[in-house]
């Protein structure tokens, strides 16, 4: 595991009697798409929550852009440059799509109470910049025409896109997507795939949890397979597909009984 953009070593997390994540290593180089797959309950989302500071790990070392860090709080991690989406969509439902993306820019903007109350030129410029960039991001993910719709009124697929736009607004180096294709139909999945490839081209690394094997195998550079909280295989999509351990985990083996 050379320097790289992000790495996590020896991640462990136990919930009561359940070892949700055990000794997991993950690493991402710049511009890579890393897949994290595994059966339900394998510990994928727990890994995400550890990396993004939602849970405190029992053990594990993290490094980002060559520096080690302890993910103490989600807001620090976001500020550092790792943005995420959620498996069960968590948008700000009383706000419009545009406002949702504006919120994403919070940690990259500075205006405070005084600036806002006095509407200083700096604050006004920043607000204009926020609006402009938020709108551009909505177009980027392909829902620009819905900027003035309430987040809750968007279709399921568009809500997932909005979550991605909101995450991108925080100018991340790593974008962590938790099942972005869940609930999408075939056309939507195809468009999502294009969007993810575009994001990679713009030099943002992607950490992807996904059940859609075709999507994962199609765009990931490296895939890590989890089962019962442990890494059972790590490699290129082609290697992973051949692995007996993976096949057993997905299709079932005797020892799972």
């Amino acid at each position, binding site marked *: 595991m050379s320097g790289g953009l992000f790495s996590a070593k020896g991640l462990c997390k136990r919930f009561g009697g359940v070892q949700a994540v055990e000794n997991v290593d993950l690493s991402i180089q710049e511009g890579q798409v890393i897949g994290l797959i595994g059966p339900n309950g394998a510990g994928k989302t727990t890994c995400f929550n550890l990396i993004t500071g939602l849970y405190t790990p029992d053990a594990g070392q993290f490094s980002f852009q060559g520096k080690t860090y302890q993910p103490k709080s989600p807001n620090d991690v976001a500020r550092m440059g790792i943005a995420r989406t959620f498996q069960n969509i968590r948008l700000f439902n009383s706000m419009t799509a545009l406002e949702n993306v*504006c*919120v994403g820019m919070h940690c990259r903007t500075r*205006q405070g109470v005084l600036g806002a109350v006095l509407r200083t030129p700096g604050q006004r410029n*920043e*607000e*204009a910049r926020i609006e402009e960039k938020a709108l551009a991001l909505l177009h980027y993910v392909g829902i620009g025409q819905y900027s003035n719709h*309430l987040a809750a009124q968007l279709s399921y697929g568009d809500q997932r896109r909005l979550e991605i736009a909101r995450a991108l607004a925080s100018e991340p180096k790593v974008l962590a997507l938790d099942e972005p294709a869940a609930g999408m139909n075939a056309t939507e999945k195809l468009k999502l795939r294009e969007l993810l490839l575009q994001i990679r081209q713009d030099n943002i690394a992607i950490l992807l949890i996904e059940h859609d094997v075709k999507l994962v195998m199609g765009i990931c550079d490296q895939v890590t397979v989890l089962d019962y909280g442990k890494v059972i295989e790590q490699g290129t999509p082609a290697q992973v597909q051949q692995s007996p351990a993976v096949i057993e985990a997905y299709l079932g083996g005797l020892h799972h009984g």
Partner: protein
Amino acid sequence: MMSNTLTDRQKQIAGFLLVAVALAALPWFAGMLGNSWVRVLNIALLYVMLALGLNIVVGFAGLLDLGYIAFYAVGAYVYGLLASPHLTDNFEVLAAMFPDGLNLSIWLMIPVGACIAAVFGVLLGAPTLRLRGDYLAIVTLGFGEIIRLFLNNLNAPVNITNGPQGINMIEPVTIGSVRFSRTVELLGIEVPALHLYYYLFLALTLLIIVICMRLQHSRIGRAWAAIRDDELAAKAMGINTRNMKLLAFALGASFGGVAGSMFSAFQGFISPESFGLMESIVVLCMVVLGGMGHIPGVILGALLLSGFPELLREVVVPLQNALFGEVLVDAEILRSLIYGLTMILVMLYKPKGLWPQRKGNNAPLRVAA
């Protein structure tokens, strides 16, 4: 196109001037009906300030606060103590330092009241950061009662608040050479003190409205709305929820403090009785009835709930006398009845309030290029 936008602008200015004239003339019309109505207006404006302050905490940031009146009390007592002889009467050191009384400027006392209330806001906010919903409501309720009990009992061993007797002989507001205690002549017009207070309260209310609106359409307002909608997602978006919540508590409390200090000056007398739980609930009702998070709605709620009981008081007795020849139902009882019924009906049929917020409340205001 150009002329079109110009007329729009002109319309805006005309509308603005009309409202300004109406607001300026209001106390004179109310005064024709009797000075008590100007008083009602003034109290209504105090409630608007309170409701707008609570709206920051409850409406913007989504933190249910049942002890908000404590900040009103803090503001009132700060002003009361600084503008009455109570402190110099009870502390010889102070009497020696200020033989003629403290005599602080109103421009100093309003900010001091606001700041001390804000400090109390943070004191309440800090231990409750992890709480939400019902749990937060219980803690804030307790906080409000603690403040009231302190005010009630801090007359021994050292007499700071004068206990249940309250503080009296509070100086009225003095701006420059104008003392808000009797009718003064301004620009050749005889202006009663009540009207002077009206204009002062109106100015402060407008200031608070502008502050609230600008905050709502800013990075801060969006962060509050995000916390209200989904705290976890807000954190994941890089919002420091701790600081933002404390800011909401502090700002909301400071508006309460300003309203409190004005109440103190206006009444000339304060006692812990004025700051009970019921007052907190009334202010919360104003916010909820009007429309949580929506500034015009909250103002409407405050005006309705503070003005309506007065109207009732005025109408009920003569009406019953005319209809039945005697008073069957006491105005006070009828007031509670209608109050309760209104709240139930509004919550059933307009759960988001009479004038709920529409979308786009937190969007950046378009900046003219």
